[in-house]
């Protein structure tokens, strides 16, 4: 199995959330890459040798937001199949998104790790 199958891309504008998600997911043995908005998310995604196993995505972000990122990801066949876990403070705004999984902030450890584990080996 390819090593990069367990890569996770975390996109969130809040530095505290980003750092903590990275630390916690790394404790569980995942490789984590982070980005602070949709734009950085796109450049990180496209610079990866293999697409990540799963993307953890915030919606409300400055610059290119989560919806912009999804628009790019879904319209690129290379990435369209990558599962996305939405992490948003507003469950309502996440309803408009056809995501595999929606987590409402504040996110609990079990739901985050549980959601991520579904898509990793």
């Amino acid at each position, binding site marked *: 199995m390819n090593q990069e199958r367990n890569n996770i891309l975390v996109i969130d504008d809040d530095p*505290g959330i980003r750092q903590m998600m990275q630390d916690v997911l790394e404790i569980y043995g995942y490789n984590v890459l982070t980005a602070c908005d949709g734009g950085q998310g796109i450049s990180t995604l496209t610079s990866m040798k293999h697409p990540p196993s799963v993307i953890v995505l915030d919606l409300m972000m400055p610059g290119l937001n989560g919806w912009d990122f999804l628009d790019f990801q879904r319209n690129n066949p290379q990435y369209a199949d990558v599962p996305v876990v939405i992490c948003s403070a507003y469950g309502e705004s996440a309803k408009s998104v056809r995501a595999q999984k929606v987590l409402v902030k504040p996110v609990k450890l079990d739901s985050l790790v549980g959601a991520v584990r579904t898509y990793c080996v």
Partner: protein
Amino acid sequence: MSKFPTVKILVVDDRPANLIAMQAAFQGCGYIVIECLSGLEALEHVKNHDFACILLDVQMPILDGFGTARLIRKEPRSRSTPIIFATAINRTEEYEEFGYVAGAVDFLFKPFNINILRAKVAVFVELYLQHEEIKRKNILLEEAILKAKENEKLKRALASRDEFLMMASHELKTPITPLTLQMEAFIQIFEEGSAATMDPVRLLRMLHTSHGQVNRLSRLINDLVDVSKLSTGKFYLDLQKVNLPDLINKVITDFKEQLRKSGCEIKFNGDEAVIGLWDGFRIEQVLVNLLTNAMKYGAGKPIEIEAKIKREKVVFSIKDNGIGIEPEAHSRIFQRFERAVSPMHYSGLGLGLYISHQIVSYHNGRIWVESAPDAGARFSVELPLN
């Protein structure tokens, strides 16, 4: 106000017999007929009542009808009340002209034909009623406009409060995510007995992240408590002797780490003591708010702090070289819940400048901003030394 306003008629004649005749003439018309025997008495009445019409005798001792009419016209309340002159004198054109100049709208000649008298008065009563109706409708209209304006104001206030509550719950919830993740991870690790395998560098980093989140939450809560104190009038100052440069240096030292992260270099040369009678804790809060903003919007460029004494006052300013503020927003940003930027782009509740403005006002000082887009911003505070 009743639907049909009462119609009052004033009859002025120095002869009681004529007054009785008039009273009889209007019987059954539904008017209130007020009678008086002299021009001076008539003037008292027009000050206190609105009349549909005034019947005024011309030949009266002391103040005659024409003189009375001129004075009636000077009273604001009776400036346009129709006056019908009643006279026994044979009509001449000059005489009538004189009457019209004095303010008459019509003439009645004695002895009266009751039907003519009633018909003439009825015309003015009809006019009066129409006028009253217009006045009533105008008042209703003005009330409606006022109400609509007030409603609009209330709606705006409600909308900005709702938006604030949305933002506040978002800001309060955000730090909870990392705190929850960290604690739940630690609990699991300790329960599994695998704590010893944890990388101490990671452990310390996680504790630092959490500590930062706790500080962020307590700052938010303090701001919310201050706003509620301010809006309920329970905000008090604890005045003590404070050396401003010491306070500024303390804040710079406290914010060393944040300054390093923001990339903003800080310049402050304050060796001379500037001592004032202030609430040191609150002035420090103003400095922290202004410095936090300067780092947040300062685009990583240098920040300059200055403090100068001018007569009995000190002016200190914090200048950044960042994104700047549109002139239209310069006064708005000191109001409650207001921000110059969209909450999508910069987090925060928009309370810092409002609280700072209030603190400065409580010290009888003032705060202002000089800025333009992309040209940085200089926030200045002037405080009396005593």
